[in-house]
């Protein structure tokens, strides 16, 4: 039973992750008064891209090819560690939150390196911005996860999230609330959503993430798109697993609650993207540092039970 449920945690992510993208796009379209693409559109895009061949610039090296592969591989590896709310992931060990953050970092590193490898000034600019923001967002993510671990007094993410139930929420509401706020900021930043980055923008000068992958095509682009969808799912699990403290003994019920929560999160993101403008680039660090500060407050409040 436990084995099946823990295998289903990454499996659900593999299957449903592109759906999150579709939900966000659908919400945005509806608010803008459009019909919007069908919910299976991301799957169709992926299938189309996988059927195409990739074009490589002659100036690029193996690093350029390694970027998409590694970023997808790290997302897949992280999928094995991150729990789906109360349902434990197949892999868990003490301090695995460091491994998760490290995997994200590795994926980002290779994406950045691949972008620099093209020699395009636009991609270099995007890489520079990505790294700047990453340097600020990583401490925030660490502090947030560390606060959860410190509050629940559990070593691994799976056990810590397993301990986040309604009773803990009523006992440590400030800490968990602040951590949730931080994770929302991290979610928006890491997934390059508004108000940090606009995934639908068409002007290279204003892009961050999209500009780094301009030169990828075909299968590589499919890997990147799928990896991005997985990241949306992964960080969503970290946030929703905290905010939806449904911890019955039944893993099916718990898992379903979190997946429903993820759908809700996608709608919230769609709502944010529809109602907010993107921040000016030089104001973004303030947002990220602000998110980190919330985590710092959470950490301090968590230390004073």
């Amino acid at each position, binding site marked *: 039973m436990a084995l099946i449920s823990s295998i289903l945690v990454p499996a659900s992510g593999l299957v449903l992750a592109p759906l999150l993208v579709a939900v966000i796009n659908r919400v945005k379209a509806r608010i803008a008064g459009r019909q919007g693409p069908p919910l299976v559109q991301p799957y169709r895009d992926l299938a189309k891209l996988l059927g195409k061949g990739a074009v490589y610039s002659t100036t690029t090296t193996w690093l350029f090819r390694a970027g998409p592969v590694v970023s997808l591989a790290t997302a897949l590896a992280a999928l094995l560690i991150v729990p789906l709310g109360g349902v434990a992931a197949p892999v868990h060990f003490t301090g695995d939150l460091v491994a998760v953050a490290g995997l994200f970092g590795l994926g980002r590193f290779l994406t950045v390196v691949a972008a620099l490898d093209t020699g395009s000034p636009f991609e270099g600019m995007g890489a520079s911005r990505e790294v700047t923001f990453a340097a600020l967002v990583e401490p925030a993510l660490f502090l947030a996860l560390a606060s959860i671990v410190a509050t629940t007094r559990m070593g691994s993410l799976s056990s810590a999230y397993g301990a986040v139930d309604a009773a803990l929420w*009523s*006992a440590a*509401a*400030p*800490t968990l*609330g*602040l951590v949730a706020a931080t994770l929302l900021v991290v979610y928006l930043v890491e997934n390059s959503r508004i108000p940090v980055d606009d995934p639908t923008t068409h002007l290279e000068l204003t892009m961050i993430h999209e500009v780094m992958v301009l030169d990828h095509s075909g299968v590589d682009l499919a890997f990147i798109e799928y990896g991005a969808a997985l990241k949306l799912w992964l960080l969503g699990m970290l946030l929703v697993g905290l905010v939806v403290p449904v911890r019955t003994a039944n893993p099916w019920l718990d898992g379903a609650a979190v997946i429903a929560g993820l759908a809700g999160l996608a709608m919230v993101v769609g709502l944010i993207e529809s109602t907010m403008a993107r921040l000016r680039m030089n104001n973004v*660090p*303030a947002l990220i*540092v*602000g998110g*980190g*500060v*919330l985590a*710092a*407050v*959470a950490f*301090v*409040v968590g*230390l*004073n*039970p």
Partner: protein
Amino acid sequence: MNHLLEILLALSLVFNFVLLGSTRIGACVIWMAMQGALYSLVPLIAGEEITPRILVLATAALAMKGGIFPWLLIRLRRRTSFHFEVEPYIGFIASLLVGVCLLAAAATLGQRIHLTAGGYNEGLLTTAFFTILTGLLLITTRRKAVMQVVGYLVLENGIYLFGVGTVVEAPMLVELGVLLDAFVAVFVMSIAVYNLSRKFEVTDVDKLAELKG
């Protein structure tokens, strides 16, 4: 520990950071007032029973910190300056990061000091110390005179919280006197800023540098 109090304290910690990160004077005044209003509710929440004395004090503090102070300052800001920006000496992000360091310092201090009397908790002390330090940081790193008054009031907020947490049984006359003094202080500071701006069109503190040595 009282859950409501805990939520309130966490909220006010966040307010401190918002104060450090806000770019608008008007916003800072509002946040300062909301923090003050939160703190004036603390005696109602922390005490076991609500005596008339506590009720009177909380009402007075709420009226002052949540109503009169921000009203005075907003009016002052409107009259004195065409600029709404805070204009710090150190950037907002730097302020926030310094704030995190100060929070760490306050937490250390809050855990070190052990009050002999009951009715306190570490979270409250940490919050009070952090609010005081935030006030000092605002006073020392903001260029606009109005912001220095805001910083002073944040400092007062912190001290008020500390007082509520440590000596719940201080005589009422003294506490009301303290509130009144804070009121007069804001009033007097407002007049000073007003005079400065009207007669010399200066509300930047770094322009006040003719007296040296």
